[in-house]
């Protein structure tokens, strides 16, 4: 937030000293608590502290508290096909300021060489490597100026793209109207927790009839740092508008916080289209699965208006545990929901992911293409719900779930739930499970491809239907990412 605030003041012509003074002032004004980091533990005071730190309106504080109180009445969900030790929510710190420059690595020489090798293979430019690895860089102004250019272009077309914290200050009514309307805090255990303690996230508003002039990427949003743990994203597409949003990064991201519980809400009004693409590559832990990120995410979109369209595309390769079901509620007549997913689990990773398509409107259509890849000792599950309600005359769904196994100690599971309460609906489900066979591998090697190149080629072929849905540059990176992720999975 502070950088953005600074940037605004830059426009007003204020000096660096002014900014410094204001920052001191802000810190003193926001709260009477001196510390920037809370000790581990969660209670109502912690929730109030977070809200106060962010200078939130009172309704927001109250909403967080209601969410917290509701969370206390809930039980940790047990239905997913994942296993992990019980999470001690009181051992987590729910607010910490970004790491200071002194605490960071001084240069890339101090960064884990393995991480650097991966960056190199992905062809990431040096200054971006520094950013990803959290190196203390002087050239912050570079990224600020890039972001500024980016923002002014968006502002011309009336698009709002900022952090949730900023939106709460600048567009509180929009946030109040939509936040929690798609994913209420009562929805599930992790959504309730997120609602109580969310740190920050992105806010996007596309006005009526506007086609967003560029793909919005979290990468370009400054302040993205340290919002990862309990991130909250809200995207609103007004009538006839169009937006493509990219989340995440192909480069492996490290984070000291093991538990991640994000919430994403999308609203598409009449004739609007939202395309949401994710590449998730959080640290999966070591070969025994120690230290990896637990990623419990609630993502849901509402096709509110007629002929609205929401499309989720995800490539999931990271995290020790992935628990994630991007969903679409198809309320508007003739609205369209899509889910394209590649989930790769290797080592000791566990992924339980899929989608929910809730058909309410007439002639609503949904497509689900899920590709699960398991290697070494990983467990990969697809879990999907297709619900056709009595009002959804002429609704159609097509589901295709394919699993690919590499090696013989990994597992693939499919849990499809189909509830059709309308006789005019059509629901199709296709599922396959296959193995990267010795014969395929041998054919590739006989033609001169080394085993790793061969496996990555076979896996990329398997994922083709999903990669096609990704924005071009993302698709190329995703292919490379799979290749790197599969290194050492063969043999």
């Amino acid at each position, binding site marked *: 937030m502070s950088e953005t605030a600074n940037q605004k003041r830059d426009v007003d012509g204020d000096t660096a000293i002014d900014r410094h003074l204001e920052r001191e002032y802000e810190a003193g004004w926001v709260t009477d608590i001196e510390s920037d980091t809370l000790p581990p533990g969660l209670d109502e005071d912690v929730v109030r502290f977070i809200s106060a730190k962010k200078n939130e309106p009172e309704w927001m504080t109250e909403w967080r508290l209601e969410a917290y109180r509701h969370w206390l009445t809930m039980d940790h969900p047990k239905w997913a096909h994942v296993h992990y030790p019980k999470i001690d929510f009181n051992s987590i710190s729910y607010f910490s300021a970004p790491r200071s420059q002194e605490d960071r690595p001084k240069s890339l020489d101090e960064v884990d060489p393995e991480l650097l090798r991966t960056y190199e293979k992905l062809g990431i430019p040096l200054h971006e490597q520094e950013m990803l690895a959290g190196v203390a860089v002087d050239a912050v102004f570079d990224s600020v100026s890039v972001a500024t250019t980016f923002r002014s272009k968006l502002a011309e077309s009336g698009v709002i793209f900022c952090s949730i914290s900023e939106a709460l200050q600048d567009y509180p009514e929009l946030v109040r109207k939509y936040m929690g309307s798609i994913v209420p805090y009562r929805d599930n255990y992790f959504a309730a927790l997120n609602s109580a303690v969310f740190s920050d996230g992105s806010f996007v508003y596309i006005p009526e009839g506007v086609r967003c002039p560029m793909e919005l990427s979290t990468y370009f949003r400054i302040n993205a740092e340290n919002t990862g743990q309990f991130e909250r994203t809200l995207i609103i597409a007004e009538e006839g508008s169009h937006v493509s949003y990219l989340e995440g990064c192909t480069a492996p991201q490290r984070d000291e916080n093991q538990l991640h519980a994000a919430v994403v809400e999308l609203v598409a009004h009449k004739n609007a289209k939202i395309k949401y693409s994710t590449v998730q590559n959080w640290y999966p832990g070591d070969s025994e699965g120690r230290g990896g990120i637990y990623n419990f995410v609630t993502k849901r979109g509402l096709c509110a208006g007629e002929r609205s369209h929401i499309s989720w595309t995800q490539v999931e390769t990271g995290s020790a545990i992935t628990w994630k079901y991007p969903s679409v509620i198809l309320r508007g007549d003739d609205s369209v929901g899509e889910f394209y997913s590649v989930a790769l689990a290797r080592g000791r990773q566990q992924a339980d992911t899929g989608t929910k398509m809730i058909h309410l409107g007439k002639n609503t259509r949904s497509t689900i293409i899920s590709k699960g890849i398991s290697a070494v000792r990983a467990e990969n599950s697809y879990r999907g719900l297709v619900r056709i309600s009595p009002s959804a005359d002429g609704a159609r769904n097509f589901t295709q779930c394919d699993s690919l196994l590499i090696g013989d100690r990994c597992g693939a599971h499919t849990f499809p739930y189909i509830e059709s309460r309308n006789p005019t609906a059509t629901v199709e489900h296709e599922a396959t499970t296959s193995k990267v*066979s*010795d*014969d*395929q591998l*041998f*054919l*590739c*090697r*006989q*033609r*001169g*491809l*080394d*085993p790793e*190149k061969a496996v990555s*080629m*076979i896996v*990329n*072929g*398997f*994922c*083709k*239907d999903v990669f096609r849905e990704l924005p071009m540059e993302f698709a190329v990176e995703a292919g490379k990412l799979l290749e790197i992720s599969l290194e050492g999975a063969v043999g």
Partner: protein
Amino acid sequence: MLKISNLHVTIAGETILNGLDLEIAAGEVHAIMGPNGSGKSTLAAVLSGREGYEVTEGSIEYFGEDLTALEPEERAWRGVFLAFQYPVEIPGVTNMEFLRASVDALRAHRGEAATSAVDFMKLARATCKQVGLDTDFLKRGVNEGFSGGEKKRNELLQMLLLEPKLAVLDETDSGLDIDALGVVADGVNTLRSAERAIILITHYQRLLNHIVPDRVHVLSGGRIIRSGGKELALELEEKGYGWLTEAAA
């Protein structure tokens, strides 16, 4: 080019090749014939480095190098090519990207630059025509949904593009109609050159009407029991294998 001496090979403890000797010089075409279970396909597998075959005795020298010490891809880089008896499918990987990756892998080993997309496309299309495959096959997944004959033509396509030094064709003629057989034979004949050696593993003499071999060998019980010129194949066609295997037993 290739010198196989006293080769013994077992699969899961069972002896399949039992003292096989074979020497092939550059420029030669050798046909290997023999009854079912005589070890013909095992020979192809061992030459190309398939897993699960254990060389217990003897040696395979290829340009003076111990071939058995090399990984399958290392053999491919050195010009060893196997046309598969049963080509597998690789769904979603287009023939085009597969072919180009193979060609570039071999070029990289020779220290040559990768092919340009446009040049390779032209070459691949022309080669498709040569083997009688519609160029649409380049866009399809490797062998995905191909008929038996199309798969064999696709093997030939790969062979022509990779320009091997030692090509081993494992029953490439089986299951082909007369027209397809002619196409395969023409393809193999265009590859014939002074620098190349070709091993044809086949059950049928008819292939050898189209590709005239320099030598014909009869494999039985894991070793070569008779070698001769092209006329040996005709003799086998007439008499079958019985007179040879009984004599050898």
